[in-house]
């Protein structure tokens, strides 16, 4: 964040001028165990999701009635043919899991981008202009916070009909509150900074100031919120799909897999354990990255 306000160089920079910025960041990155672990796991899941068509041993949609509910490989009746077993329609669980990662990641990323756009716009405007604009936008944020997200999302997707696109739009329109709150408070802190004042003196337009001067300086805080909202969106998608109002069958959404396995969970607990753990690991990795990035952004650099 120190690129625009050149005066507040950190102690390390003053003492060790020879170490370039990216090396310093790299060292902090490697020194932060949570961030490193989170990035590795998240990176791995992203690679697995992208390579799903080549990695998946079977067609995730192919039903095979003679191969129903085969247990995973660590079970005594399991086999390497179906590493994570099969579901009630005989579909390969590992293949469905790999394709399911694509759904979770797509929804998390797209919903966070939409809500990020809405929330950042509102927050920056409120923080920069203050006064009446701020009062109106703060009121909108308060109202949004008072609406029960899960209930509203369920009610709306029941009316519109659940689908991948629908879930993305719905979550994008609902989860912008934290972006707005953070963008507003960080903008308020920078509104009177010298570099904004000098841009004004130089005759820059308000749009230029907001987009080219202000936005780059609050971006790191927004990226942290982005990770949190990605995790939030992924969990909400799983919840909606679990309740039957999100992504529709036969798509291999992890929430839907848990919902389909629910009837069998008493005697074959792995049918809900496998997709549940997958969800948990993905969200955990994203949260670790988010927490790590926040620590790295913190001026005192706690690590």
């Amino acid at each position: 964040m120190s690129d625009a306000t050149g005066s507040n160089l950190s102690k390390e920079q003053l003492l060790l001028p020879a170490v370039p910025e990216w090396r310093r960041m790299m060292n902090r990155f490697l020194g932060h165990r949570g961030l490193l672990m989170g990035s590795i796991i998240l990176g791995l899941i992203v690679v697995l999701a992208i390579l799903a068509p080549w990695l998946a041993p079977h067609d995730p949609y192919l039903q095979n009635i003679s191969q129903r509910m085969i247990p995973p490989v660590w079970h005594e009746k399991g086999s390497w043919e179906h590493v994570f077993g099969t579901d009630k329609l005989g579909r390969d669980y590992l293949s469905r899991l790999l394709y399911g990662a694509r759904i979770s990641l797509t929804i998390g990323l797209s919903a966070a981008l939409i809500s990020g756009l809405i929330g950042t716009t509102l927050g920056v405007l409120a923080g920069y202009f203050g006064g009446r604009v701020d009062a109106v936008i703060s009121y909108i944020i308060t109202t949004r916070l008072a609406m029960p997200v899960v209930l509203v999302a369920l009610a709306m997707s029941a009316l519109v009909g659940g689908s991948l696109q629908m879930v993305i739009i719905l979550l994008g329109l609902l989860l912008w509150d934290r972006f707005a709150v953070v963008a507003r408070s960080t903008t308020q802190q920078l509104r009177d900074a010298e570099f904004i004042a000098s841009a004004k003196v130089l005759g820059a337009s308000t749009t230029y100031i907001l987009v080219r001067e202000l936005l780059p300086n609050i971006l790191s805080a927004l990226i942290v919120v982005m990770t949190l909202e990605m995790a939030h969106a992924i969990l909400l998608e799983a919840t909606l799909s679990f309740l039957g109002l999100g992504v529709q069958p036969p798509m291999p959404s992890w929430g839907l897999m848990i919902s389909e396995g629910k009837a069998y969970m008493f005697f074959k607990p792995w049918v809900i354990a496998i997709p549940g753990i997958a969800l948990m690991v993905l969200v955990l990795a994203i949260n670790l990255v988010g927490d790590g990035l926040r620590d790295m952004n913190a001026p005192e650099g706690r690590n």
Partner: protein
Amino acid sequence: MLVFIFRRLLVAFSVAITVSVVSFMLLHLSGDLAISIAGPESTAAQVEQIRIDFGLDKPMVYQYFDWLWGAVQLDFGRSYYFQDTVMGLISERLPVTLTLGALALALATVIAIPLGVIAAIKQDTWIDRLALTIAVIGQAMPSFWFALTLIVIFAVNLQWLPAGGNESWQHFVLPAIALGYYAMPAMMRLTRTGMLEVLNSDYIRTARSKGLNESTVIFKHALRNAVIPVVALAAVELGFMLGGSVVIESVFSLKGLGQLGWDAITRNDYPVVQAVVLIIAVFYILLTFLADVINAMLDPRLRVR
């Protein structure tokens, strides 16, 4: 202080009205309610009849004010599906959800605050790491999946507790754990950072240099200040939990407000959906209002805002 309370109350009231407008509009704009109620096999004439019967042929503004006029008198009309008034259904279900929410919050607080305090005192030791791990896992677990896992372990395999229903207090244990673990991490983390901040402050150094023993310093001087924001958060979390009860209650088939909302959604029972959304929102608004007032009472600097 009175001015502050009055101003906040005014905002709270207008937010409640706005929420009612927005949720009303969202439901009416998301699709044709008459078609949803009539079902997929109905004829155009049947849809038209329903439109007239339920007053859906009138302009939306008229429908809204008609509904609002009833709502302020606590009359939300009749349920389309259940043979009861909406208010009757809600007053029957609300105590269940409030009990669940209170239990879950109590559980979360009882675990979060001591754990946060210990983690702060023993910063960077294995206890601190363990506390953070518990919190991080709680934030990453889908609540419905955790609920199902609890059922598999404690209701089916160990047979300690019932899997669903709400006949006795035992029926509330697993749902309260599932819901409480969802609220716990945020409170634990806030207690921990609050404690860390307070423990490094000047007045704690003074207390220590006066020769007070460590437990007096921690419990009498530090905890009291560190806990203030946690109390406010607890109120907000309770509001969130009422919203989150939709999922937990439907997993445990606990007959509360959340399950009523869910049943109403799946049966296109819109008067009930609207009333449940509004009531949960009003609770959230009241709780955040309460949190604001508590904070302002404890910290006079906040009153000027």
